[in-house]
């Protein structure tokens, strides 16, 4: 009977609203019991680029500690920083080091991987390498045609990331220095979009995490050095950034176990390289 069902629905809804309010009182921290087993919840938020790595860690951690669930959410590097600084999540994932706004919040940095950035061009561009000075000229909009940097007569299309993104911050820090990006360049929202944009736009140049390099685009050498893990480790290729997991204060219990697992040689060797990152242990101190 319709009447019944509708009333039941209303009751369920009321119950749900009630649950929402009740849950406000509950906290979702994690706790340890005597024998080193943890239970509860670990929440991670922030960088989408770090998402796959954190999700993998969550799966492996869950296999080890079945009573702990690890929730991963995106939103961006600074969502991660803000959320962890406010104590709303246990771990904030970020592509960039925290800024002045967060320096008094007691955040503890855990660098979990190194992310090399490749300079990529459309496969039709017949330039194999650029000097750092040429890159600066291109990204600041001083040079607008490939013929001025040794290529064919074709307009250069810059496809980058938004000013606040970790990727763009890395290029700015390692290539441009105190100069500014040409604001007229196109901006896309993610590694995947930039790769797609560069692949489909003749004369395009952009930058993505090394993991996103595939046959649809061409990587160029910078100052004669190719973007490879080995060249980053040896110190010859300079365009890379640290990937961070932040905690508020020193991590404890399950969160500590989680971070320990991510930093362990086993996890780093098996997983980090697969994502195109470089294990932290490989980098010279």
């Amino acid at each position, binding site marked *: 009977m319709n*009447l*019944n069902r509708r*009333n039941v629905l*209303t009751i369920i809804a009321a119950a749900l609203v009630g649950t929402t309010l009740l849950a406000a009182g509950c906290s979702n921290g994690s706790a340890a019991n005597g024998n080193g087993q943890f239970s509860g919840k670990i929440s991670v938020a922030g960088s989408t680029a770090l998402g796959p790595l954190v999700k993998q860690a969550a799966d492996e951690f869950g296999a080890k500690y079945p009573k702990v669930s690890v929730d991963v959410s*995106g*939103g*961006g*590097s*600074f*969502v991660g*920083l*803000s959320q962890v600084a406010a104590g709303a999540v246990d771990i904030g994932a970020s592509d960039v080091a925290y*800024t002045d*706004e*967060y320096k008094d919040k007691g955040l503890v940095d855990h660098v979990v991987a190194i992310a090399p950035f490749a300079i990529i061009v459309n496969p039709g561009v017949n330039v194999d390498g650029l000097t750092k000075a040429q890159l600066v000229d291109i990204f600041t909009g001083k040079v607008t045609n490939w013929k001025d940097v040794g290529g064919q007569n074709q*307009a*250069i*299309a810059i*496809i980058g990331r*938004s*000013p*606040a*993104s*970790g990727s763009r911050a890395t290029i700015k820090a390692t290539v441009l220095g105190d100069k*500014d990006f040409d*604001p*007229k*360049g*196109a*901006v*896309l*929202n993610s590694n995947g*979009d930039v790769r*797609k*944009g560069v692949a*489909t*736009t*003749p*004369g*395009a140049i952009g930058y993505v995490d090394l993991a996103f390099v595939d046959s649809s685009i061409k990587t160029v050498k910078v100052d004669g050095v190719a973007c490879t893990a080995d060249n980053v480790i040896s110190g010859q290729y300079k365009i890379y950034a640290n990937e961070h997991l932040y905690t508020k204060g020193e991590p404890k219990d399950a969160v500590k176990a989680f971070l320990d697992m991510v930093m362990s040689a086993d996890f780093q060797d098996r997983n980090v390289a697969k994502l195109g990152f470089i294990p932290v242990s490989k980098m010279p101190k």
Partner: protein
Amino acid sequence: MSALNTGRTAVPTQTGVGAAVRTRLRGRRRDTGAIWRGLFFASAIFLVISIAAILVMVGRQAAALFTQVRPLAFLFGRVWAPEHGLYGALPFLVGSLAATGLALLIGVPLGLAGAIYLAKLATPRAQRVMRPAIELLAGIPSVVYGWVGLTALVPFIRRHSGHVTGFGLLAAGVVLAVMVLPTFISLAEDALRAVPQDIEHGSLALGTTRWQTIAHVLIPAAWPGIAAAGILSMARAIGETMAVQMVLGNSPVIPAGLIVPASTLTSEIVLEMGSTPQGSPANNALFAMGLLLLLISLGLIIAVRATRKEATAGVRQAH
């Protein structure tokens, strides 16, 4: 629940016992009635609370911006460069208005034609195909629209325009035009159908062709409804996010043309919200852009109300 059922069985009886029972049941009936009325009212008030909470949340951050940046410098500033302390939102405002305008320019004629077809020309069988098709168009996730736009539309525009990338307001306008079609068509069709049949029959009886009737009688009579459909489509277009930012190119500058990278309020919000520190002027400026969007939408809604009033006034005059 049970009270409602008992209530229904409480048919008037003539015996004294029956009357007593009846009075008792009436009392209970009135109680449950009051509870339901309260619940209905609470549901309605919940909507007011929701929008108020959103406005407070967005407004608080925006207000924080205006302690650091003058409102006029925000609204009419032509340069967005947070790293240099410049928080001009004009490029995004211009982009939003231009993309929306373009979407209406393309979408409204097409949608009006679709609505006329559905309301007046289509056979029942064609309607059975067309209507679910339009519903489906409304149901396609915006990420899919954006992806098709990025992989098919942007390269198409680039090839045929000779521009460097193909990103820009034109691509955004076309994608948005397709995305507002369902809203516009269904509302415009309702408006066309709401025109009293006798007006139409009267015109046809005068020996006009079908099209003359549509163009000179039907559309003018339905005009306030069509205008409302247009305004609601506008609200839909100006708030769309995920699809637009994939085809727009997102340069924070006032665009010099339709096929150069440009930005809108929504694209800028989605692009930078997650990557600016909470409480920083740049982050607050994004909330201020959200407030601006809300205010624009509010203005559009008030415009719709005005056209509706006009419509009712028109109908009243006609009678």
